[in-house]
Every structure is written in structure tokens, then in C-alpha cells.
């Protein structure tokens, strides 16, 4: 099933004929305090809601998708957790140490929205297409065997990234948390519809030019591996989202006027527009230097370093 948010906070299910059926009324029984409660409520009560959702899809009568404004399917997760470099990218390097960072939930935008580049002196602003996992229940300390059942579904993510800001001796990832820098869309596809989450093709097209184009088969760590690890660190809640990292071979600049389409086979595609009031310009096309740098990065030790870390 495909779950979407549209037209200023309505929740809908998307039928196979590309119509959307408003099911917001079904969620009122859970007494939402604000719109952001509705998706976690739907996730929490999904099994009991499912027969009614399916019968509404069968009944039809939805609006054509073209007639609604889709929004980010996630409104306000308690956490956006992002895996750091989690793809092999054509190398045969040993598996890297697992690491992740958090992104500001205020950064969320959705299909048709505009990414606003800030005036900060970034060296470049990159698109990073990723598959994102939406958690299905409150959980902590999941075993690897429990992980897949704790997943509600999958969505498409663009981790917009400003480079070259902050202290160069550390990796704060704050340049990924500017408002408008977290694109999610076009909807959440429930887990049962994805036959093999390791066989999905992820693409980015900027103004019709193909940039990123990679398969989730290249992922370094399995979903059970990194999600069980994350749950050993912190409690996860329904609707929390874990972004699985990108393959950097194919990143490129996002600049004023760009139309960026991020897509995953079997899930869907969504479009972001880019606005830069400073009208800065970067080379168009794939950033080969960045791709090469990531492939040859050797500053990641195979075992945890013995400290030297401070904040």
C-alpha cells in the first residue's frame, strides 16, 4: 500500500490507477492533537486499519494524483537518522565502521517543493539520493531477526548536502540540516510491497540529465545489521526515519533553477526545485572529483580509534 500526505496535511492512500483516496477521517478516532500525529497513528494502528483502507481502495472514487499537491509523507518524525557512506561504490574495501548522524526535522520538504540554498560560503551543494526506512513501532535493542518486522515501509529521500562548512577537523554534518534540505517523497510504500529491498534502482535526474544511478544491492551493511545497531543506541518511535546512505558515484551540484527528480524503482519519484538568491554557479554534471575522493578515502580505520575525540 502507498501512503501519502497531500493538500495541507490530508492523509491518503494511492490506488493503482494513480488516484488518491483521502482517509484522514479514519484517523480522527485516534484523536490527533496535530497533523504530525496522524502518520504515526496510522502506522501504529495499521493492521487494524488495513481492511478498511483496502476496501476504500477497491471502492475507488479518489482524486487523480495530478489534481492534488503531494507533500512529504513524513511530517515531523522525532528523529531523522542518516547512515554515513554505506555503499561499496565499486571498491573492494573492507566494510567500514558503522556511523550515522541526525538531520533537523525542520528541514523536511516534499514533492514540488523548493530547496533554498542559504547564503553560507559552501564549496558546493550536492544531491544525495537514498532509500529511507520508516519505522513501524516503538523499539529498542532489536535483534537482527526482529528488524524487518519493525519496519513499516520505505520512501525516497534526497539528503541535500552543503560541503565545506564548519570545522574541518571534525564531521558535524550541520551543512545537511539547513531548512528545506531533507526531501522525502512521493509516498511511503509498505514493506510487504517491496519484494527485495536489496534490488532497487535509485536515480537522480537534474534537468533531465541522469546523475546518480545505483542499486541497493551495493549496500555495505544489511538493513538488519545497521537498524539493530541504531536501536541498540536509542529508542525508535513509529514514523522515525532511517536514511540508508548514498552511493557518491554520481553526485552533482544543485543550483538555482534546477529541477531535481529523485526516484526508486518500485517506490516512486518526486521532484524538488532549487532556488539560490545569490545565483552562484557550479560545474554541471557529475562531480567526478567528489566521487573519486569517496572511493579512495583511507582515513576510516578498520577498528575504532582509541579516543582523541572531543566536543
Amino acid at each position, binding site marked *: 500500500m502507498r501512503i501519502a500526505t497531500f493538500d495541507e496535511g490530508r492523509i491518503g492512500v494511492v490506488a493503482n490507477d494513480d488516484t488518491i483516496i483521502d482517509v484522514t477521517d479514519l484517523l480522527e478516532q485516534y484523536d490527533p492533537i496535530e497533523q504530525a500525529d496522524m502518520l504515526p497513528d496510522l502506522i501504529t494502528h495499521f493492521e487494524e486499519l488495513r481492511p478498511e483502507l483496502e476496501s476504500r481502495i477497491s471502492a475507488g472514487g479518489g482524486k487523480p494524483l495530478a489534481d492534488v499537491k503531494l507533500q512529504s509523507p513524513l511530517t515531523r518524525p522525532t528523529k531523522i537518522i542518516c547512515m554515513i557512506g554505506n555503499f561499496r561504490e565499486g571498491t573492494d574495501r573492507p566494510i567500514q565502521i558503522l556511523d*550515522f548522524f*541526525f538531520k533537523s526535522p525542520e528541514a523536511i520538504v516534499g514533492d514540488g517543493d523548493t530547496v533554498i540554498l542559504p547564503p553560507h560560503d559552501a564549496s558546493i551543494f550536492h544531491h544525495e539520493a537514498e532509500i529511507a526506512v520508516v519505522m513501524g513501532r516503538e523499539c529498542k535493542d532489536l535483534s537482527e531477526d526482529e528488524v524487518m518486522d519493525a519496519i513499516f515501509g520505505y520512501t525516497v529521500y534526497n539528503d541535500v548536502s552543503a560541503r565545506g562548512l564548519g570545522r574541518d*577537523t*571534525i*564531521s558535524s554534518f550541520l551543512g545537511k*540540516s539547513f531548512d528545506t534540505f531533507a526531501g522525502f517523497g512521493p509516498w511511503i510504500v509498505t514493506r510487504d510491497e517491496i519484494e527485495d529491498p536489496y534490488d532497487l534502482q535509485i536515480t537522480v535526474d537534474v534537468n533531465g540529465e541522469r546523475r546518480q544511478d545505483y542499486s541497493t544491492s551495493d549496500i555495505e551493511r544489511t538493513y538488519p545489521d545497521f537498524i539493530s545497531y541504531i536501536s541498540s*543506541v536509542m529508542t525508535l518511535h513509529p514514523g522515525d526515519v532511517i536514511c540508508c546512505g548514498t552511493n557518491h558515484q554520481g553526485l552533482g551540484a544543485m543550483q538555482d533553477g534546477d529541477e531535481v527528480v529523485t526516484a526508486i524503482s518500485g517506490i516512486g519519484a518526486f521532484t524538488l526545485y532549487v532556488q539560490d538568491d545569490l545565483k552562484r554557479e557550479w560545474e554541471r554534471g557529475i562531480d567526478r572529483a567528489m566521487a573519486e575522493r569517496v572511493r579512495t578515502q583511507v582515513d576510516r580505520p578498520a577498528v575504532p580509534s582509541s579516543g582523541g575525540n572531543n*566536543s
Partner: protein
Amino acid sequence: MRLLLTSDNRIAVEQDGGVYDVSSVFDDIRYRTSADRMPRVLGVFLDRREQIEQAVASGEPIQVSGLQAPVPRPPKLIAAFGNYREGTDRERQEQDMFLLSPDSVLGPGGTVVLPNHPATIFHHEAELALVIGRRCKDLPADERALDALAGYTCGIDVSGRGLGRRGPSRIGKSFDTFTPLGPAIVTTDEIADPNNLRVTLSVNDELRQDFNTSDMEYNVPEVLSFLTGYMTLVPGDVILTGTNHQGLGALQDGDHVRMEIENVGVLEVDVRDPQKREWPRGVDQEFANRVRGSVRA
């Protein structure tokens, strides 16, 4: 004004040695748990000061058996990287910050639980914490920025070292229970200068950290201005303004930690380690020296 959240979910004000229930001022704020309640309460708090004062004036002191963190789960929890001069005369470092898990918050009297992860050590980091009271973006780097604050509280940024790939470990700071906060949100009118406050932290009555917020590289308005240049802040967001690393030490099983910020309050927590690991007690002087040397710009 000193705003508290009691363990039985009453919103209260501490005044003249008594605690007064002011929950009635927020009766119209719907909520599910204290975690989603406090950001909503803080969203109207600054505009309801008069009603709160009336509730205190007309109320009787109550008995309080315990407190929760004044923001049990902030919408965002953000920490500044090394933001103190630490006795050096170096140039200011580039300003930088990162987000932590908001589920890491722990209340006063709670227990920090050290996880079964191979950290090289778990350090305490005492910090002045800022609590946001108004939605804001692009604040100026002067005292006008303080208008966005609901107030100040004490924060301990418990830090497991050596996890993750490189640089300061975000993972090591994001374990559940690793961000004790409290006891009260103290409004800005009670603090003449947030950059002239003594901060101390003791472990089992041994003084470890003892520094003044006057040593900050970027003062409180500059922290707020920098951060809101990146992102919108919303009521209930909490910002940890960095620690002075001269005085950090290990936290280990059975430790009792007492942190105090002058005029802000006293925050006490315990530590439990199911693995019963042991580290040298006292100040981690080697780490302190490394920070003084390594962070030179």
C-alpha cells in the same frame, strides 16, 4: 521564574523555597505524554507569565516527590563542539554544532546507563543548556537573541569516546539516558549575564569540572545566531553550549554526579554499568591536555 515538571506530570513554579502547581494555566494544551506536552507548553509559556504569577500568588505550596526533565523529549537536541578557550590564547575556532538523539534526555535523579558498546571511556561534560521559547530563524548575534529563550537549565553531555568513524562521536553521545537535563527552566530575567556563570561538576563529592561561562569562545547570542542561520528553532528545542574539557573524567558504575550552575540550579544523577567496567578515577588529565593542544586552530 523557575519552571519545573514534576514526576506526577504537574507543571510547577519554584519560588521562595516553595513549589506551586501552575498546571491550570496550561489546561487548554492537549497532549498525549509529557514528551509532547512540554514543547507545546513552552510555546505559550512566555506569553502567560502573568497568569502563572497569579496562580502562584493564589496557590498553596505542594509536596513534590520527584522531577522529570523540564523537556523530556525536545523537538531537537543540538550541541556545540568545543566552545571554550580552556586557558589557551588561541584564535577562536570555527563555530560548529551537531544534532543528538532527543531520546537521550534523562531527568533529575535519574540513572545514566552505560551501554554494552566498546567505548574507550564515558566522560561527563557539564554544559549550560538553552531552552527555546519562540519559533525563530536568523537571530541576531546580540542580546536580542535571548528573547527567543524560555530560559536556561543544566545539561550533562555524557560522551562515549571512540565509537563511529572519526571526529567527536555523535553515536557516543546519543545513547538513551546520556543527556541529563534540569532541574528547572530558569527564565532569562533571572540571569543577569549568561556568560558569567560558574559551572561545577562533582563525582562522588570530588570536584572535577569548575569553569565559568565567561570563557566561551562564542557567547550565548552568537551560538543562537549561528544555529538559526542554519535551521528554524521551535519551542522546546534544547541547545547544549559546549563544555570546558579541563576537568572531564570517567563515569562508571555506582557514581553519583552533581552538577551546578550558579543561579540556575543543581542537577544530580547516578550511573549504572551492567558490565561493571572500570576506568581511572579523577580528572582525565591526558584528555584535557590533548584538547588544549589538539584544538588549536
